[in-house]
């Protein structure tokens, strides 16, 4: 399964995590996450995923974008990641990921987003 295919399971993963949705309950934002070359558009409402649109969308406006290489997501989404591949900021520091746009909603809800973007790690457990 490609990293993008794994990320496409995000709605089910978040549905199965009521505590994460509880922690994100103050958050409503549209943002973009690039898995390698493939963009995903997330519409988050009250901490839940209202929509996850996969692939390029013409003129879609988002608050911010988080992007990382396929290699970065693949090494990030293992049960116990190696040092330097285990956190979003470890990835940005090594140049394998970036964040741009209006980062305020990201920083206001940083642990929520870190945990959201780590959800595909669950599918690595027991693999």
């Amino acid at each position: 399964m490609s990293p993008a295919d794994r990320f496409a399971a995000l709605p089910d993963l978040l549905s199965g995590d009521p505590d994460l949705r509880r922690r994100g309950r103050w958050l409503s934002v549209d943002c973009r996450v690039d898995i390698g070359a493939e963009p995903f558009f997330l519409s988050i409402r009250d901490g839940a995923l209202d929509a996850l649109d996969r692939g390029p969308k013409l003129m879609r406006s988002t608050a911010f974008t988080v992007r990382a290489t396929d290699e970065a997501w693949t090494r990030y989404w293992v049960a116990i990641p190696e040092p330097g591949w285990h956190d979003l900021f470890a990835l940005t520091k090594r140049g394998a990921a970036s964040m741009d746009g209006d980062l305020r909603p990201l920083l206001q809800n940083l642990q929520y987003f870190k945990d959201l973007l780590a959800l595909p790690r669950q599918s690595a457990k027991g693999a």
Partner: protein
Amino acid sequence: MAPKLDPMVGRYVRTEIDGVPHRLYFEEAGQGIPLVCLHTAGADNRQYRHLLADPEITRRFRVLAFDLPWHGKSTPPDGWERGEYRLTTESYTAAIRAFCRAMELDKPVVMGCSIGGRIVLNLAIAHAAEFRALIALEAADFQQPWYDTSWLHRPDVHGGEVCAALVSGLIAPQSPPVHRHETLWMYMQGGPGVFKGDLYFYRVDGDLREKVKSIDTKICPLYLLTGEYDFSCTPDDTLRTAQQIPGIEVQIMKEVGHFPMSEHPAKFREYILPVLAKIAG
């Protein structure tokens, strides 16, 4: 049934730092060689609670962990509301020496983590003869910044939560969840702008490149220990620093991140006990 008491006792000591009166909170346990512990940026002495409760350590060491001014239960100096807090190499060094003097400690060992590790390097550079040994955890002469500290103190972002969320990635994935979340809880409790003010020392004022070459480990032994999951002070940063200091002892700790004493006390114990045994002779 007798109350179940932790062994450490907390008190306040009055002292002056650079001529300014301070009331510093500290906890201590044990007897023997004084071992002064320095917490990380934006945190407090609770990070050392497992060390303070370890009889294998406290039977030979008098462990003292104090809160820097502005941190934990040490209040800021009078008039704090009229200025912005900024820790500097000079003010940090002065605070540590003031605490040691106020407590009348005779040649203590000092162990610090992160900014505490960096300042330990400065103690080795400038005041080595005052100490029996120095232990720097997660320390290097310089580290590349990995985020913009202006996010740490502004009215539209909760300072405690953003500080905790940022540093959460510095904890190793193997660290027990209960210790991970206790470490983060402490980060959520810092005063406004305090973590940011500490990082002024870390990023702007405390660059020790070149200066570490003057450290003489024959005057005072120096130990460096860094967790492999620390991407703020990476193992490479620590090893690069160690290469410049003859006689230094350096270790990279497996399955540990930036907060060894609080994120994984049992694992840290495996690494620190042999160092303390060597210091105790």
